[in-house]
């Protein structure tokens, strides 16, 4: 695999960020994790990742943060031609109905995780979303059989006719 697919975690509280990154440990070998503690920092990270020829597969984003809030950051991401492919997950306890509607309608939010989360739940969501990402991008599923949802990836290979030669 030439290009790296990153997981981006955006969270302003240090302990929460640490807990998230810890729970994502098993993915790190395949999907390097980058973190940012504000929307502004996150935008810089996103820019750097794409500038180096890599891409973001999944964003886990808090909502209430100093500066630009999480939903607005995700909407901005969605309007970018290149970056809108990334799967977007809100990890928050404090997004109101209005914000959530905004996120779904304008940022094509893929999942909503309410704090507090469990490790199991987080892993499940991340696995499902990254599997979606890899299939959407039509990447070779075989590279990800060991870490992502192998049954769904096999099903994908069955219906997308990887052929004999």
């Amino acid at each position: 695999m030439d290009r790296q697919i990153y997981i981006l975690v955006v969270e302003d509280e240090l302990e929460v960020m640490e807990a998230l990154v810890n729970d994502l440990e098993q993915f790190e070998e395949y999907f390097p994790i980058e973190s940012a503690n504000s929307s502004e920092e996150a935008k810089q990270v996103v820019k750097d990742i794409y500038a180096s020829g890599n891409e973001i597969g999944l964003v886990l984003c808090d909502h209430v943060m100093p500066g630009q809030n999480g939903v607005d950051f995700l909407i901005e991401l969605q309007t970018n031609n290149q970056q809108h492919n990334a799967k977007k997950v809100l990890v928050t306890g404090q997004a109101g109905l209005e914000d959530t509607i905004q996120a779904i309608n304008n940022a094509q939010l893929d999942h909503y995780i309410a704090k507090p989360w469990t490790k199991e739940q987080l892993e499940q969501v991340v696995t499902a979303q990254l599997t979606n990402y890899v299939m959407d991008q039509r990447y070779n599923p075989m590279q990800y059989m060991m870490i992502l949802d192998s049954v769904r990836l096999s099903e994908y290979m069955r219906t997308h006719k990887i052929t004999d030669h």
Partner: protein
Amino acid sequence: MKLDTKQIVGISIGLLGLISPFFFQLEGLSDAGHVALGIFFLAAAYWMLEPFPIYATSVLVIFLQVILLSQQGFLFPESTAQYTPDDYTAFIGTLASPIIILFLGGFVLADAAVKYDLDRNLTRILLSPFGKKPGSIVLGLMVVTALLSAFMSNTATTAMMMTVILPIMARIGKTDPLRIGLALCIPFAANIGGIATPIGTPPNAVVIGALSQQGINIPFGEWMILATPLVVVALLFAWFLLIKMFKPEAESIQIDMSGKFNTSGNAILLYIAFAATVLFWVTESFHGVKSAIIALIPVVFLTLSGVVTKEDIRKLPWEVLWLVAGGISLGISMKSTGLAEWIVGSIEWSAFGTISLLVVFAGVSVLMSNFLSNTVTATLLIPLAVSLATSGVAGEGFNLIIVSLVIGVSASMAMMLPISTPPNAIAMSTGTIQTSNMAKAGVSVGIFGIILVVIYALFYWPFILN
């Protein structure tokens, strides 16, 4: 398009190969033969080193033959004493040759079968009599995989079977060798099962295509009579080997495949088309209608009825057809320019006996296809075998059909490495097996395969063909 060093090296070797015959006057080889040799070198280099996708090389091969060797090409507008150029339609016509149409019919059927879950439902039904004991489950999985891959692509079959075995593997102990056995049994059975019918796997198409150029038609059913007994023995051997090598610890395993047959109107039409086509195929010897003509039935029937849509047609694996057509087309000019005969004539064949020749062809074919595409292996070896047999230099016992079968069947017996076949690659990607597991089992199957093929070539195939 950015090229890496490996690609640049590959491309350069191919181009060198293409022009090299122009710098030598090879005795006994016509001018056109020199050109054909250059194209052969280029094709071999590109197919083996893969600087380009192999199907792209195939269209390049067709194109080069049209512009260099056909009557409409630059070099041989007129017949010469040594070479009567083929019309360019002979080369591009390979894209619609009977074997390609046969495959097209197979693709349409397989595609519709996947769309309506026929493959999965058949698996569910066929697996149920095999009970819960690990040994018999593995046998069941292998039988079903082989059966499906005889009519569908080996790779699609493997992918589907993975969705069956991955949940089983998740439930058995992490250290149970059964996990390895399960992960290996599917690709092995898929590789072997592909041998069973003409449409099972592309190397079969190469064999049938080459033989039909010699005016020999092998009916669908006759191929099955020739190949299926070998498939059964090879499959049983692979099963026995995997069960012994990776002794299961689990006492019983549960397969829970739920679901039921799709009973929508379209699905029923598909079942009918599938059953009818297969029935007509296997009975070709009785009614005499060629299998390529029968292959049009599902294409016509399923598109007229809308079971197969425009989107489905676009998603068919057309590149496989190109690949096979390129191979057949290469065979045309190797024959008509006298190149194949010249290569054959430059070796002292009578020094070998028939048996050792068969062993060599089977061995080289298995070895090459472990590292190369099975289809490419068959494509590169078949023209040599054909001219060896038709020229008669290898002696009476060296039968054209038999040696072609030896090469085609052996090409499917390669399963030593993850790169050997796409099914192997899928099994490897699950992370359950080490390359060494696959290599140990794969080498055993490969060696057994060579022995088996030679035995069939000496005793069974002559008996059926005469």
